[in-house]
């Protein structure tokens, strides 16, 4: 392969490293040693650096993969929807185990963290195409088609609703919009907001957004107007607007639906933000899992340029702004804004130290505002309808509406646009949840609520959430939920800092000791103490929230843990002598009999 020729078009641009690696992988099926050396040479990097980037991202591979690469989602809702049977079917039909490639080189089976399809699990991504609601029969059929050499695109038999059926999407993904609200799914005529925004000053835009009390919809809830103001005030030869479309929190999928049904609203929001902060370029950082939306989104951008809503001299007002799409490559931590920026620069998605904050030194070390998809869409509507309209919804602290991605044990999983202030109980009724044991608000990094908390309100001052709501009924074992969540954080830790990298592994070990009935009162104390240490000492939001599955279930379901620990014993070892000698016995053919009485 002539790498030099392929690399030429990237003009030695280091920020496009991930894009380059993706192209090479799509051509050869993996990133070969020769490819790595060529890329390193072209970009002036060491081979070790390029390998560092490849090995960071889940969807990049330096080892050969099969012709079809199956990434089966392993989130908790997938487990609840029968993932195990589906996984076994994959292994049976392909003759290889997860983590391996079939002997004929046809299929590679891999696991992956939440792919944003929680309401239609079990789901998998095969060569970039999403397959939802899998069952063993469907798996059998898919493997049969693979043997025939069918293109994955042609394996999609029926497309989903709305724009999922667009010729540039053609995806079986369903929107499952169960409840529309006045903001994101409210009345909307594209182009109106940007024209209105350009009639006033950037300062007025910031004021309006501040007045509306728009708080970041990704979960952290930072005031958007303030962020824009900080960014605007920073000096820099260029400013950037970055749309964070890397929703990786297990259980959230609302940005996927917004980008499918309301892309113009998001892009307009980016342009408005650009006008407000003084940026001319916006970047949509789209998670790899949503690659299937890319061509469609490019098409929408192109249409908006043609309409004069993007590009040079927007609405004849002398404001230039355009948007480019940058793809992620599979890393939950890139949802953290500084990690996202690193990734957008073509590096390993490791969070930065703050200060400086992205508004001061963001993309390319220039002032950047990073906003969530829903935040930007909401900003568009605020500009059209005004701050007062927006504040008339929700609560005084949490104005407006919120998109919730509801999944798990309920009759109607999907997207709900609700006003802030809704109680968990009201939500459960709305979605048709019965016999509910627990509600996970805000995903694994959020809060696990028991019935005692169902009166609590979804809003920033009580139960904040980026949108993920997972419901568990009384037939579920909460310990397997916690286990799934802890595994998620262990896998997704970037490995930079000690408490997150090592602490979570140790926390999980302690959790398993308790779960297996070998815990003591001391173990229970320790798991809580260790969780606090990880929370306090970790470098970024991932580590600071990673013990939450344990800590919040301990707070809401303490009796569950207490029922598993032995209250009398002051010490219970995990060590089992018969187990420990089993291997040696097998090797030497000996039988072991424990001496009961030594004396």
């Amino acid at each position: 392969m002539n790498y030099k020729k392929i690399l030429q078009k990237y003009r030695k641009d280091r920020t496009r490293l991930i894009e380059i690696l993706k192209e090479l992988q799509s051509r050869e099926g993996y990133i070969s040693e020769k490819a790595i050396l060529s890329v390193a040479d072209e970009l002036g990097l060491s081979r070790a650096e390029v390998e560092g980037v490849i090995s960071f991202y889940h969807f990049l591979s330096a080892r050969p993969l099969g012709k079809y690469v199956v990434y089966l989602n392993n989130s908790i809702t997938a487990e609840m929807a029968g993932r195990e049977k589906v996984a076994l079917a994959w292994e049976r039909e392909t003759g290889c185990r997860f983590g391996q490639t079939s002997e004929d080189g046809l299929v590679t089976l891999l696991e992956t963290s939440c792919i944003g399809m929680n309401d239609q699990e079990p789901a998998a991504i095969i060569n970039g195409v999403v397959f939802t609601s899998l069952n063993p029969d469907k798996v059998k059929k898919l493997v049969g088609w693979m043997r025939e050499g069918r293109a994955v695109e042609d394996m999609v038999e029926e497309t989903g609703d709305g724009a999922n059926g667009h010729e540039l999407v053609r995806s079986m993904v369903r929107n499952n919009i169960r409840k529309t609200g006045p903001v994101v799914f409210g009345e909307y005529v594209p182009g109106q907001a940007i024209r209105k925004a350009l009639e006033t000053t950037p300062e007025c835009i910031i004021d309006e957004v501040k007045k509306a009390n728009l708080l970041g919809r990704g979960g952290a809830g930072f005031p958007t107007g303030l962020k824009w103001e900080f960014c605007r005030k920073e000096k820099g030869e260029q400013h950037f607007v970055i749309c964070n479309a890397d929703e990786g929190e297990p259980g959230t999928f609302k940005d996927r639906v917004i980008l499918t049904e309301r892309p113009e609203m998001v892009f307009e929001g980016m342009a408005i933000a650009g006008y407000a902060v003084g940026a001319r370029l916006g970047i949509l950082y789209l998670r790899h899992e949503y690659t299937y939306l890319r061509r469609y989104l490019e098409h929408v951008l192109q249409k908006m340029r043609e309409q004069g809503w993007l590009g040079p001299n927007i609405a004849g007002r002398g404001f230039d702004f355009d948007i480019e799409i940058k793809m992620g490559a599979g890393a939950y931590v890139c949802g953290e804004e500084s990690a996202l920026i690193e990734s957008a620069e073509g590096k390993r998605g490791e969070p930065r130290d703050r200060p400086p904050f992205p508004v001061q030194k963001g993309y390319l070390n220039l002032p950047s505002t990073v906003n969530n998809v829903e935040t930007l869409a909401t900003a568009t509507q605020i500009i059209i309808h005004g701050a007062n309209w927006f504040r008339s919804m929700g609560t005084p602290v949490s104005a407006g509406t919120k998109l919730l991605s509801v999944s798990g044990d309920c009759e109607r999983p999907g997207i709900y646009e609700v006003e802030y202030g809704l109680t968990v109980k009201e939500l459960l009724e709305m979605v048709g949840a019965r016999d509910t044991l627990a509600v996970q608000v805000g995903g694994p990094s959020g809060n696990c609520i028991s019935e005692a908390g169902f009166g609590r309100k979804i809003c920033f001052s009580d139960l904040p959430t980026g949108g993920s709501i997972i419901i568990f009924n009384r037939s579920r074992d909460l310990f397997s939920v916690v286990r799934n969540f802890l595994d998620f954080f262990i896998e997704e830790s970037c490995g930079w800092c000690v408490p997150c990298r090592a602490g979570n592994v140790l926390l999980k070990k302690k959790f398993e000791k308790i779960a297996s009935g070998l815990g003591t009162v001391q173990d229970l104390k320790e798991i809580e103490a260790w969780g606090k240490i990880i929370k306090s000492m970790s470098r970024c939001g991932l580590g600071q929230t990673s013990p939450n599955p344990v800590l919040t279930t301990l707070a809401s379901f303490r009796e569950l843990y207490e029922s598993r620990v032995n209250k009398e014993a002051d010490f219970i070892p995990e060590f089992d002598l018969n187990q420990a000698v089993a291997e040696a016995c097998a090797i030497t053919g000996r039988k072991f009999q424990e001496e009961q009485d030594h004396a």
Partner: protein
Amino acid sequence: MSKPVIATASLAGCFGCHMSFLDIDERILDLIELVEFDKSPIDDIKKFSRPVDIGLIEGGCCNAENVEVLRYFRKNCKILVSVGECAVMGGLPAMRNTIPLKECLEEAYLNSPTVAPEDRLIPADEDIPVLLDRVYPCHEIVKIDYFLPGCPPSADLIWEALTALVQGRPLRLEYELVKYD
């Protein structure tokens, strides 16, 4: 009042900690005044003859016999002390913990260049204690009350710890006393 009773054992260790214990030199005369010894390689008493106040354990557990001796000590000692790196963290024997047991045995008894072709055999005699899958620190098997790291812990550290325990006072750990090598 009878003197406190002490017992010692060396499990998967090299007896270096026992040697270091003897390095208390002339203080051994004070020790005899202070305590009595029960089961220990020092006096060659094989079985516990009475309840013991302080058990000193050298070495981690690499085979079933180690586990049995350790449990036997736990049953008979009021206070159990892990003495030395091997007892505390497995020590050098635990360097095998990252290698599968089968590989270790094959390397030692089948593939090693120093094994004559006719001697290639993995020992399986019933009289040899069965190996564990890995080497375990003592506190992963029984409750350990105190830890004295070092390879070996210095005679001064052992002396300080022992006298503190016997006299029921808190340990005075001068900076130079605690070392891991």
